[in-house]
């Protein structure tokens, strides 16, 4: 008996310096609130189940999450991933809101992590429904370029460490090379207007509204073009600026209506609906938010294999999306571990490849990665972007950042009043 004890003490003594040194490497970084150290987080997270509420409409994304995060979480950290699919992220916001209304305290809630950005984040932040700040207190946040306004500002609002980036996306169009050639493609809204008039009934866009942010983004980009550029929209919400240009945009969209699919009587409500219209040849342009462009949807068989992504010359909105932890998350530690894992460069390299089913862009700044095996993974990913993607140069050249979240709700409501119901 005594010998066994001795052995244990010895082992403990041997391990102590290692633990201390591990502590040291993170000395420059404060632990997330409520935890003594990152090790304490790992310790507490072991055995927990992380309830991740995320939009679940894409099975390939679901599959990606289960494979690329679920397995390492369990194997490396002893955490079980419970991914809860949502029809719309606002459902999760509403859930936390209802819980807070019902007086549910910290640790007693149901949601550990939400895939979130923009308006939903803004709502939760405003109602103080989030745990934090923590996003700059997890180890892998060192790969994140927090200086980049597109990361530090979510729809023009400061992130303040209450959400951690996961991936990035950029608006781009899809066309079918079997139906038209690259020379005929419109490269601006002005050209799109001409194209639509010349090809009546062959174009439509996703109705801006809840759960259909690509539609909102499509309209937002018109604001940029008609007002002469995106720069003036960056920063605080500006009602005057909006009021100045909104009538112009509505006028344009109304002028389109007779030339749109179904004469603009109705609009597709979701991305999936537009994919279907495009695939069946009802319209000639499709939208996506994926840097891999058409590749992902060619893979799933949702659109013809001859499809190809393209961009306008400018004003293609790109942004980051994030994960946030509700104030009442029952498994904060596990949520932190997951958020940290998502930033690991090899997994980031996995998520950009269409074949893996996720196909969104990097959440980290790849130039900060110095580990060799990670660099190799990133280089390999670059070769696998698929034939359906828009040229990387076009994407980079047309990229603009998104703007204050207030515009989104405003555009959605006004579009409905001034275009849909006119």
């Amino acid at each position: 008996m005594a010998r066994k004890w001795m052995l244990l003490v010895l082992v403990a003594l041997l391990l102590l310096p290692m633990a201390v040194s591990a502590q040291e490497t993170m000395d420059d970084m404060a632990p997330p609130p409520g935890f003594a150290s990152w090790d304490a987080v790992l310790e507490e997270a072991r055995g927990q189940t992380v309830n991740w509420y995320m939009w679940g409409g894409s099975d390939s994304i679901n599959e990606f999450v289960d494979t690329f995060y679920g397995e390492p979480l369990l194997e490396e950290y002893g955490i079980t991933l419970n991914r809860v699919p949502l029809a719309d992220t606002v459902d999760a916001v509403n859930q936390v809101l209802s819980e807070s209304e019902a007086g549910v305290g910290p640790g007693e809630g149901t949601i550990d992590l939400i895939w979130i950005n923009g308006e939903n984040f803004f709502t939760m932040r405003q109602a103080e429904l989030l745990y934090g700040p923590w996003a700059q207190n997890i180890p892998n946040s060192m790969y994140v370029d927090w200086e980049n306004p597109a990361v530090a500002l979510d729809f023009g609002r400061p992130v303040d460490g209450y959400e951690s980036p996961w991936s990035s996306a950029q608006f781009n169009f899809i066309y079918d090379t079997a139906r038209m050639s690259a020379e005929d493609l419109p490269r601006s809204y002005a050209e799109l207007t001409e194209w639509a008039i010349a090809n009546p009934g062959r174009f439509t866009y996703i109705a801006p509204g809840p759960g259909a942010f690509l539609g909102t983004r499509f309209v937002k980009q018109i604001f940029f073009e008609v007002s002469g550029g995106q720069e003036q929209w960056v920063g605080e919400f500006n009602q005057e600026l909006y009021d100045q240009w909104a009538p112009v945009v509505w006028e344009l969209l109304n002028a389109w209506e007779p030339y749109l699919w179904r004469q603009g009587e109705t609009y597709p409500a979701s991305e999936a609906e537009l994919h279907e219209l495009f695939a069946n040849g009802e319209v000639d342009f499709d939208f996506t938010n994926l840097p891999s462009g058409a590749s992902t949807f060619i893979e799933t068989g949702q659109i013809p294999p001859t499809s190809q992504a393209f961009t306008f010359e400018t004003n293609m909105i790109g942004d980051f999306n994030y994960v946030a932890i509700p104030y009442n998350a029952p498994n904060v530690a596990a949520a932190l571990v997951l958020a940290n894992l998502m930033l690991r460069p090899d997994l980031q390299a996995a998520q950009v490849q269409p074949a893996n089913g996720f196909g969104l862009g990097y959440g980290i700044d790849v130039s900060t990665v110095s580990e060799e095996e990670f660099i190799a993974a990133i280089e390999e990913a670059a070769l696998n972007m698929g034939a359906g993607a828009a040229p990387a140069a076009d994407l980079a050249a047309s990229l603009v950042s998104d703007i204050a979240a207030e515009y989104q709700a405003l555009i959605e409501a006004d579009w409905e009043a001034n275009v849909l119901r006119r």
Partner: protein
Amino acid sequence: MSRVKRILFYAAVVGVVLALVLPIITFFINAFAFRWFYPQFVPNEWSLQAWERIGLIPREGQRTLEGWWRLLSSGSDVINALGTSLALGGLVTVLSVIIGLPAARALGLYRFRFKRLVEFMILAPTIVPVIAFVLGLNINFIRWGFSGTLLGVAVVHLVPVMPYVVLTLSGVFANYNPEFEEQARTLGAGPLRTFWYITLPSIFPGLVVAALFAFLVSWSQYLLTFLIGAGRVITIPMLLFAQASGGNNAVTAAMSLIFIAPAVLTLLLSARYLSGEASAVGGFGRI
């Protein structure tokens, strides 16, 4: 019937039946089609991709015994949701029958004051839309801590289920002679054995129909599960609804088939008890 008349008659029957089952036929095509775009009438490419995606068939090359086992034990969304849906349906069925049986007996066998009022109250949930009460329920359930638990959702499913269970069973009791029980009592059977040997066998066909409705109404419930399950009780209709509003057709079709299979199976198994139960068919209105 004359020859022409007979041909017309059969044409009408075939037409009606075919039209009614056509939506279901489209599921079978969609679920196995790949790149099935307009104007193809018959798909050019067939694929099991949708079934792979929902985790019911292993990917090509992994369709070995081990691959199947790994897949089924990995617990894909659909398999988990199938389990949840079945557990929920089973729980609702058992609860509703246990709770509804005494009430059905009281309504079927006895006359009492306020009987009309009681009947009206029990039937009210069949008329008042779910949307009218579920919003109020949502907040209270969160407050009481029932929200997001399987039991909580099951209890809420009881609201649309109870009217049909009580209605069906009270119809059975209206044609039931309680003297059979008295006969058994005087022959020496205690209350429990009287229930087991006398009451249960007598009402069994009606009980099957009631249970069928309870299960099916629960099985097809979307809004209640969505709002009370708080995203933690994921049933097949929840997955299917999310999929249908933003996913790919093949996967939607495959999931739809998964969704209707147990329902049709239950109908098949209990069809012999169902014939002629006009009052009971009312339960289908809720599905």
